[in-house]
């Protein structure tokens, strides 16, 4: 793999949590490279550390040791406020339970990340409309989350994730709360974002059907990458 195409480079990352006097190791010496525009699925049993790894890559949590370079920036060295700014500019988030703000309309939810940019109101409106068109929810812009189906809410969440044009899209069980048809719809959308728009997508999932949509699959078990995944430069296992 060409170094220029690597967008995420993880080296010897470990992470543990403290529960009382006990220290629980979650990730052990993880090294992993993710190429630009790749659609990577992270699979593994519950408690294997998938979501923790995703949180570390997205800058939501701090590693105990090791380095995580995203787009050439070692995010393990950033302070909380620097990380917040970095996330706002470079990462789009898609969650299992959509995590839309219930008191805001679909339009306002999508507009939310743009409030951190210097865009004018008119520019924000243009960006939001483009993102909402992308997820085909133009007729639902003024609806509140409670007035939308699960699949529609997840599409709003995807619009919110892409509205700032981030480098990286991270998705934690994006189809975990959806029926089969809606899940298929959401996965196709994510596939399009990676394939047609060049977004790097990292998705944690339990669902083998969801993993099949990804171009690349990595397995985690007990905090370790399995088999060929152990080697950071190893080729992806095709999904």
């Amino acid at each position: 793999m060409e170094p220029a195409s690597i967008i995420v480079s993880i080296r010897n990352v470990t992470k543990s949590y403290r529960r009382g006097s006990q220290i629980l190791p979650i990730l052990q010496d993880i090294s992993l490279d993710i190429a630009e525009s790749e659609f990577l699925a992270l699979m593994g049993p519950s408690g294997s550390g998938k979501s923790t790894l995703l949180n570390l890559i997205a800058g939501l949590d701090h590693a105990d040791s090791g380095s995580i370079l995203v787009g050439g920036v070692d995010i393990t060295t950033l302070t909380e406020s620097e990380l917040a700014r970095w996330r706002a500019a470079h990462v789009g988030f898609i969650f299992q339970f959509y995590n839309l703000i219930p008191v805001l309309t679909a339009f306002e939810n999508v507009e939310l990340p743009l409030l951190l940019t210097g865009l004018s109101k008119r520019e924000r409106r243009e960006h939001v409309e483009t993102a909402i068109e992308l997820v085909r929810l133009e007729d639902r812009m003024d609806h509140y989350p409670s007035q939308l189906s699960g699949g529609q809410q997840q599409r709003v969440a995807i619009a919110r994730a892409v509205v700032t044009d981030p480098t990286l899209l991270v998705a934690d069980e994006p189809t975990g709360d959806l029926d089969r048809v809606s899940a298929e719809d959401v996965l196709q959308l994510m596939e399009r974002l990676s394939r047609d728009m060049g977004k790097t997508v990292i998705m944690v999932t339990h669902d083998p059907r969801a993993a099949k949509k990804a171009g690349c699959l990595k397995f985690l078990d007990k905090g370790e990458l399995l088999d060929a995944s152990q080697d950071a430069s190893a080729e992806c296992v095709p999904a």
Partner: protein
Amino acid sequence: MLLRMLLRNAFRHKLRTGLTICGLAVAILAFGLLRTVIDAWYAGVAASAANRLVTRNSISLVFSLPLSYREKIRTVSGVRVVSWGNWFGGVYIDEKNFFANFAVEPKTYLEMYPEYILPPDQERDFFRDRKACVAGVKLARRFGWKIGDIVTLKGTIFPGNWEFVLRGIYRGRDRAVDETTFFFHWDYLNESLKKTAPSRADKVGFYMIEIAEPDLAAQTSQSIDALFKNSYAETLTETEKAFQLGFVSMSEAILLAIQLISFVVIFIILAVVANTMAMSVRERMGEYAVFKTLGFTWRTVAVMILGESLIITALGGALGILVTFPVAGAFADAVGAYFPIFNVTAETIYLDAASSVAVGILASIFPIWRAATVRIAEGLRRIG
């Protein structure tokens, strides 16, 4: 968008927010009324003039002073006007109809109290008629008195039925002036006493003294008291304010208790609002984690929580202040005999508003700390 979101968040649980606003309104109303009661207690002190002194018997106010002191007091340097009077303590029909009534020397008394506004014709009639009396407009309204009416007081300190003709109804120069006082000619009292109880005649309860230089009040007071040192009726002269404070200090423990209660009311509502905010923030911990995930800092989260808390307390405070006026009016009507001046002051409204804001800020501190310090991953786990 932030303001829109604050308003929508504040009313997400309409019943909870509504009850909290009502609770705060009641607390602010209680706080305002209690402060007004305290102000009413100090009304006499507030209405005191810096250029007026009161001379009384140094042993106690119940002991009188000889009328002959007035000439000696007039000779003291800095004294402009000397007036005198007695607390009459008369009862109108029934003891429950209490109001303050004094026998005074009319001309000097009205000269010294320009805050009592009496129409010139009524003033003339009052001076001319020895049995004349003057009542405050609130007092006259309370008993339906009109000019020319005969008012009979039953004497408690000076026994007998005392008849007066109402020759004047005064108004206060401003809202701080007591409009429930009743006064009549000291000469009428004195001449009656000469006939019925000669030993009590030519004695006054107090001297009111107007001085030219308020800054020399202490010096003038000392000079007056020095005149009567080692006499059989030594005097105590003090400023009108100090004289009034002497009455208030008798109820100091009650006032302290009222003040304490007023702050306890605020403390209780602080706990209620803090509980409301803590519940709201606990329920929305996941949403705050989403905000932080998207790149908003803890400061934005803090502004959202503080803003919501302030919206609730501002609405409750405003409602409480609005209802304070009619309730205080009704309260004043009910207890007007004991609190002749019962005005909700601007200071009380400022205190109400400041208390509402303080409750809003204090109630949000702990929820802000919780929302600001929770790890994003931990907060996101609260969803679902």
